[in-house]
């Protein structure tokens, strides 16, 4: 990203009406452009102070390039750092081959260094589940517990970008993912029952929609759609996309989710044809197949997925991976809620409210 683009992106960022902004740096590997991160952080902090807005910084990084100086910077500017950890060494190394080295070992070392500087609260990890991972959830979950993480996100492979080209080798049908998820969730609930506190982030997100009066902040399940209305992506080349998927679609030669460029005003970007298209198709409650779905109060539309699959943003629920996956997840969670085992409900409420019940806390 050029300095000029950075300045323009910050201008656009602060034209948004939200009083609290979350700025996520992602790549590629954002730490390969650390000087740019420093510049943007400074520009954004100065501007936030001037305009009286609150900003939270987050970053998704392998941490492999995180020196102590970099980690100190992330700590000083209160970054929430998310790294990739796919499971124990055989799973992780299989997903992320490094010529002549073990990426698992490097990740482990990086996590230890990061924990020492950032503390455990600011550091979380994300799993990428490949076909290989689906063989067994338990070793992956155990690895997270072993490394002291309090949360694991059992999300399936994104159908975009690099993953699409390797689909044949890595991808799997939704039913296989759901079977894996159900088994994994059961195992995590058992762990919690035995006193090991580990949150499954997907369940926590969906349960927060089900069990609280508040709308989800999870972009993929917002209705009206999170893309564009809740998130904007400023690309290194100055393009502005409605979401991360928009950037990935662009890599695949499809510009449907491109709003324009950072040189245009926020107002212009938000009234682009792309935003009009998202506004017209981004309300789950009004989509065929969603409007009469029992789960629609907790779900959201998936225009990016529909565009990539069927070329139009409405799509067809019958062949929507997003729909199959979430119906499956809701079925699993509602089965637990209906079964109403007290210890499971207690774990769920603890995840949802991020606080223990009084009688246990005492």
């Amino acid at each position: 990203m050029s300095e000029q683009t950075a300045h323009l992106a910050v201008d656009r960022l602060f034209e948004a009406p939200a009083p609290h902004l979350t700025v996520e740096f992602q790549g590629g590997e954002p730490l390969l452009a650390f000087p740019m991160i420093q510049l943007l952080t400074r520009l954004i902090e100065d501007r936030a102070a001037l305009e009286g807005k609150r900003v939270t910084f987050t970053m998704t990084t392998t941490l492999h390039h995180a020196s102590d100086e970099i980690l100190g910077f992330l700590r000083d500017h209160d970054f929430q750092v998310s790294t990739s950890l796919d499971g124990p060494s055989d799973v992780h190394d299989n997903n992320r081959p490094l010529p002549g080295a073990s990426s698992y070992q490097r990740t482990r070392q990086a996590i230890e260094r990061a924990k020492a500087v950032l503390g455990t609260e600011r550091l979380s990890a994300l799993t990428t589940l490949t076909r290989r991972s689906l063989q067994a959830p338990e070793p992956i979950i155990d690895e997270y517990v072993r490394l002291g993480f309090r949360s694991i996100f059992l999300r399936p492979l994104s159908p975009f970008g690099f993953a699409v080209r390797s689909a044949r080798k890595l991808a799997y049908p939704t039913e296989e993912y759901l079977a894996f998820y159900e088994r994994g969730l059961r195992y995590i609930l058992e762990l919690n029952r035995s006193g090991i506190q580990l949150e499954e982030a997907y369940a926590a997100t969906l349960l927060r929609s089900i069990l609280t009066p508040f709308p989800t902040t999870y972009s993929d399940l917002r209705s009206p759609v999170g893309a564009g209305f809740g998130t904007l992506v400023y690309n290194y080349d100055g393009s502005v996309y409605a979401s991360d998927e928009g950037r990935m679609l662009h890599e695949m030669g499809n510009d449907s989710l491109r709003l324009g460029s950072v040189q245009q005003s926020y107002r212009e970007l938000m009234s682009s044809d792309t935003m009009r298209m998202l506004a017209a198709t981004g309300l789950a409650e009004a989509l065929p197949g969603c409007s009469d779905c029992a789960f629609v109060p907790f779900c959201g539309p998936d225009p990016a997925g529909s565009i990539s699959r069927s070329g139009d943003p409405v799509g067809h629920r019958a062949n929507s991976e997003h729909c199959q996956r979430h119906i499956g997840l809701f079925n699993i969670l509602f089965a637990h809620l209906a079964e109403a085992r007290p210890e499971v409900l207690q774990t769920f409420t603890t995840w949802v409210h991020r606080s223990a019940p009084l009688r246990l806390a005492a």
Partner: protein
Amino acid sequence: MALPLHTRCEATGNLPSLPLKVLSLGEMLEGQYPLDRTLIDLRENADLVDLTALASLGVAAVLLMIDPGNAPLPSLYAVRNPAVIAPGDVIRVRDNGQINVLFRRAANANAVFTTERCNSRCLMCSQPPREIDDTWRVREILDLLPLIDRDLQFLGFTGGEPTLLGSGLCEILSAASTDLPSTRFHVLTNGRTFQDSDYAAQFGNVSGRVTWGVPLYADVAALHDYVVQAPGAFAETIDGIYNLGELGHRIEIRCVVHAQTLPRLQKLGEFIYRNMPFVSHVALMGLEPMGFAKGNRDLLWVDPADYKEIVQDTAERLQQSGMNVSLYNMPLCTLDRWAWPLARQSISDWKNNYAPECEACEVRGSCAGFFQSTDATWRSRNLSPIRPTEVAV
């Protein structure tokens, strides 16, 4: 404890019919209050003071032990229960010699009684309303407010239903926020009048200073309306809560726990969290056996031992959801230990009492105890002193 708010006295001279601030000689000289509104307490030092000098200063009246005979200014004496009045208090003296304490400096809580009228007839009302015209109270309260201690932290307004004073309540609260610039106010209201958003909007200038304590007895209209004996009340109260909430007011939801409200209490808790998570406090309250509550005992009585589980579960869920919850009027020995942090000493000291069993109790000092009206027939069978060994953790 339990010092009454009324007593009688003898009086000579022409007492002003306005509320009077009782002051020691020393505090009078500090000059914080208008002299023509002060009653100087000379019960312990009458012989040191020249009453003629006080009269010429313009002091309203003096309080003495015995009849001064031919005093140069109005005098009160022979107070039947002398402890009822102390310097700092504000009192009203009626022509017949009755004294009402309107503000007590030493009290753990002070409430201003705004009206006897009410548009509900709650089954358990401890202060049964009367349909009389008592709008004269507005004037009296406006006269009272400048005499209240400036450093008072907290002042309640109760009734009856204060909003039946219409714009009079607005006037009172505006004056209160000017006269008592650092005091937080609490108004007990059924919220029904606030269904009129124009009325709610009149209170914009006191938003943030006032917490509105609004009772809600059920998650369904029919049951709430039955408890408050007023058809349509539920819908009006809910509208009122939203109107106040929209204007940024602080709202507290109150529910008295009894045989009518208990069966749906958990559902009410969920209803509050789902529909009004913006309220700043939820109080679940034990019964005060006064007024209508006494006559309706058959409809209301549940031993706290039998409602403990439901009350605690409701409170715990609300608390875990991030809501502020309190248990009012519930003795600690009727609750599980883990729920003690939610229990408050919620009873005003002038009507607060303890049972004989409480003498031996280790946690009496942090327990709500009982209302004076809570006689043995209204106390839990689980009442028992907490022993020192049980307190050690």
